[in-house]
C-alpha cells in the first residue's frame, strides 16, 4: 500500500484519544450568570476590585463592541456564536494568594501534575519556598479559567526590579503603568474580538522590565480553560524599557468538551530603545474530536510595538490545538532599526481550521522583519497562512524576508498561502517565497530503506521541515513542542 494511503488512513484514525490534556478538574467554581451586558461587566470589575477608571474603560470597549460585527475575511467557517450563551466570569472558589502548598486546592495541583508541570514547580506555583539550589529557571503564572491562581518567583524577580504578576493585581498595584500602556498597542476598537476582550477580560499576566535589566529567568504562563460554557479572555501586557530584555513563554490546554468554547485573548508588547522581547507560544487548546465536535475557538489578537530604536520583538508559535485558530501576532516597527520576527509552526488535523500568520508594519527607517511559517495539514483540516508586510513611505532601508512552506498529509485537507505585500518606499527590499508539497515518497522510501519505520520517517522529515522554527524556541519549550509534534504525528502513519 502506498505510504500516502497509509498515512491518510492513520491520520483519519487519529482521534481524540491522542489529546492527553482533555481531563476536567472538579473544583468548586464561582461563576457569573450566562450572558453579556453592562451588569456583567460591572460584576467582573467589582470581583476584581478594580478602580473606577478600569470599569469606565471596559464599558467604553463594550459600547464599541456592540457596534461592531464579527470579521468574515478569514478562511474559517463556524456556526454563529451566541455571545449571550456563555459565562464571562468563572473562578476557582478559594482564598486568593495561597501561602503554602496545603492552602492550594489539591485538585488544582493534580491539574498541574497532569499538565506536566514538574512537582517542585507545582510547589513553586503555590508559593512554597524551595532551597536555593533547586530553583527552576522559569517563573510561572498560571491562569485557570478567568483568574490567575499563582505566580512563582516573584521575590527573585522583584529583587531584579521585574514586575511579573496577574494583570488584575497590576491594575490595583501598578495603575500608572497599566494606564499608560493598556490598549495603546491593541486599541479596544481594533477588531471585534479585541473589543470583546477589553470589555470582559478577567486575567492574564503583566510584565514590566525596567531600564537596563535583563530578566534573570524565563517567564511563563499556563492558561487553562476548565469550566463549562466559559469563555476565556485573558489579557497580557509586557512592557520592556530601554536596554532591557525578557523571554516569555505561553502554554495552554483545555478539557475535551462537545460544545465549542471561546478564547479571545489580547496580548500587547511594548519595547523601548534597544529592548528585546521574545514571546513564545505552544498552543494546545483542545482541537475537537475526529468528527469536528467541540474544541476551542481561538480568536486572538497579539501585537507588539517596537517603539524604541533598535528594539526587537520576536514571536515564535507552535500551534497544534484549537478547533479554529484566528491569530496574527504582529509587529509595529516604529523605532529606527527595529526588528520584528515571526516563526510559526501550525499543525492541523481532523476538522481543525487555522487562519494564522502575521503583520509586519514597517514605519521606521532601516527596520527589518523575518517571517518563517511552516504549515502542516492532515485529516480534513484546512490551514491558511495569511500575512501582511507593509512598508510605509518613511521606512527607507526596510527589509523583509518571508518564507512560507506548507506540507499536506493526505488528500482531504487544504493548505493555503495568502501574503499581502505592500511597499511604498523605493529603498525597501521585500522577498517572499512560498512552497506547497507533500512528504515526498522518495524521502520516505530513503529513510525506510535505512531501517526507519514509516512513522519515524515522517517524524524525522516533519521535524526537519519545522527545524527553522523549532530552533527559535527556548530549550524548555522546544522539548515540549517536539513532543507535541510527535503526538500529532503519532498514528499519522500506519
Amino acid at each position: 500500500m502506498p505510504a500516502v494511503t497509509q498515512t491518510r488512513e492513520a491520520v483519519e484514525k487519529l482521534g481524540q484519544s491522542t489529546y492527553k490534556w482533555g481531563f476536567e478538574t472538579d473544583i468548586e467554581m464561582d461563576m457569573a450568570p450566562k450572558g453579556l451586558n453592562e451588569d456583567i461587566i460591572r460584576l467582573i470589575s467589582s470581583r476584581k476590585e478594580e478602580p473606577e477608571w478600569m470599569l469606565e474603560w471596559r464599558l467604553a470597549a463594550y459600547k464599541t463592541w456592540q457596534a461592531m460585527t464579527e470579521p468574515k475575511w478569514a478562511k474559517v467557517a463556524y456556526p454563529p456564536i451566541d455571545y449571550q450563551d456563555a459565562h464571562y466570569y468563572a473562578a476557582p472558589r478559594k482564598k486568593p494568594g495561597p501561602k503554602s502548598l496545603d492552602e492550594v486546592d489539591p485538585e488544582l495541583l493534580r491539574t498541574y501534575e497532569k499538565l506536566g508541570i514538574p512537582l517542585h514547580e507545582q510547589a513553586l506555583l503555590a508559593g512554597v519556598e524551595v532551597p536555593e539550589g533547586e530553583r527552576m529557571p522559569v517563573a510561572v503564572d498560571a491562569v485557570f479559567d478567568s483568574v490567575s491562581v499563582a505566580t512563582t518567583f516573584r521575590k527573585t524577580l522583584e529583587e531584579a526590579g521585574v514586575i511579573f504578576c496577574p494583570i488584575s493585581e497590576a491594575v490595583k498595584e501598578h495603575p500608572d503603568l497599566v494606564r499608560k500602556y493598556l490598549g495603546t498597542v491593541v486599541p479596544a476598537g481594533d477588531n471585534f474580538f479585541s473589543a470583546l476582550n477589553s470589555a470582559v477580560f478577567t486575567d492574564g499576566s503583566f510584565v514590566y522590565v525596567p531600564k537596563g535589566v535583563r530578566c534573570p529567568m524565563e517567564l511563563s504562563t499556563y492558561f487553562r480553560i476548565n469550566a463549562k460554557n466559559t469563555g476565556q479572555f485573558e489579557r497580557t501586557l509586557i512592557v520592556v524599557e530601554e536596554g532591557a530584555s525578557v523571554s516569555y513563554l505561553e502554554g495552554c490546554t483545555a478539557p475535551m468538551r462537545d460544545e465549542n468554547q471561546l478564547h479571545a485573548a489580547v496580548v500587547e508588547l511594548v519595547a523601548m530603545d534597544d529592548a528585546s522581547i521574545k514571546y513564545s507560544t505552544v498552543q494546545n487548546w483542545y482541537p475537537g474530536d475526529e468528527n469536528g465536535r467541540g474544541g476551542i475557538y481561538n480568536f486572538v489578537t497579539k501585537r507588539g510595538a517596537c517603539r524604541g530604536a533598535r528594539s526587537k520583538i520576536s514571536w515564535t508559535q507552535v500551534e497544534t490545538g484549537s478547533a479554529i485558530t484566528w491569530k496574527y501576532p504582529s509587529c509595529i516597527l516604529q523605532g529606527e532599526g527595529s526588528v520584528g520576527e515571526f516563526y510559526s509552526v501550525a499543525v492541523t488535523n481532523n476538522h481543525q481550521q487555522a487562519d494564522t500568520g502575521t503583520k509586519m508594519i514597517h514605519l521606521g527607517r532601516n527596520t527589518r522583519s523575518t517571517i518563517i511559517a511552516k504549515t502542516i495539514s492532515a485529516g480534513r483540516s484546512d490551514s491558511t497562512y495569511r500575512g501582511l508586510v507593509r512598508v510605509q513611505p518613511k521606512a527607507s532601508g526596510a527589509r523583509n524576508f518571508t518564507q512560507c512552506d506548507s506540507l499536506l498529509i493526505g488528500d482531504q485537507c487544504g493548505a493555503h498561502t495568502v501574503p499581502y505585500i505592500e511597499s511604498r518606499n523605493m529603498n525597501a527590499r521585500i522577498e517572499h517565497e512560498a512552497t506547497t508539497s507533500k512528504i515526498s515518497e522518495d524521502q520516505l522510501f530513503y529513510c525506510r530503506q535505512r531501517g526507519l519505520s514509516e512513522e519515524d520517517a515522517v517524524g524525522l522529515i516533519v521535524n526537519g521541515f519545522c527545524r527553522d522554527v523549532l530552533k527559535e524556541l527556548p530549550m524548555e519549550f522546544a522539548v515540549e513542542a517536539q513532543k507535541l509534534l510527535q503526538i500529532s504525528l503519532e498514528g499519522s502513519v500506519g
Partner: protein
Amino acid sequence: MSQFLEISGLCARIDADGQEKQILRGVDLSIPPGEVHVIMGPNGSGKSTLSYVLAGREDYEVTAGTATFHGQDLLAMEPEERAAAGLFLAFQSPIELPGVNNANFLRTAVNAVRRARGQDELDAVAFLKMAREAAKALSMAPDMLKRNVNVGFSGGEKKRNEVLQMTLLQPTFAILDETDSGLDVDALRIVAEGVNRLRAPTFSALVITHHQKLLDYLVPDRIHVMARGRIILSGGPELARQIDQEGYTKFLAEVA
C-alpha cells in the same frame, strides 16, 4: 537454504503517466554468500528497477516471480524490515532531506536497525565516535555529519555518504546502483575500499555499473548482462572487460 539471495522469474512493472510499463520480464539470479556480483547492461534494461524492487519501492508492482533473502520472502517485507534483515541499497541519486541533520539521521537509522536485530542501541557519544571514524576512513570532511542529509552535497559527497551509511548499518547484502558514476579516480578508490572493508564470507554485493574501473578495485565473482528486463548472459570477471572493450551491441545481437 544454501543461496542467501535467490531471485526467480521476477517480473515488475511501473505505472508511468497513467500507462503500465513492464520493466522486469523474468529475472533469474542467485547470489551465494561472500560473493560480489555485477550487473551490466544498456540504459533502460531494468537494472535500477531491479534494485528498487529488491529494496521494496512501492511504485513498482511485482507481477510474477519470487525473491528470497536468507530464505525469507523478501517481497512480502516492508522496506525497513528489509533494511533490518541486512539489505542495503546505495541509491543512484541519493535523496535530500532538508532540515534533517546527517548525524541524527544516521544514528536514528543505525539504532532502528540495531533494535530490530536485537542489539543494544548506541548512545550519542558512542555513535558519534563510530561515525567520525567511518567518515574519516572515507576521507569525508568532518562537517558532513553536521550538514543536512545530502542537501548541498556534491555528487561525490553524496556517493560517499551512501557508503558511510552502508558502513554504519553493516548490511549482509548491498546493492550499489552506479555508485561509481560521477566519481573521480581518487574518490572511486576510496569508495571501493569502503566496500572492500565490508567483504566477508557473510557479505555479498550486487554492483550495478557501466565501467570496468570500479571492478578493478572490487574484483567481482560473477558478471551478469541485463537487457530488456532479463539477465541474458552470465560469466566470469573476463566478461566485464570484454564489454568494456567491445560494448553491448555484440552480446545483444547474439542473444536476439
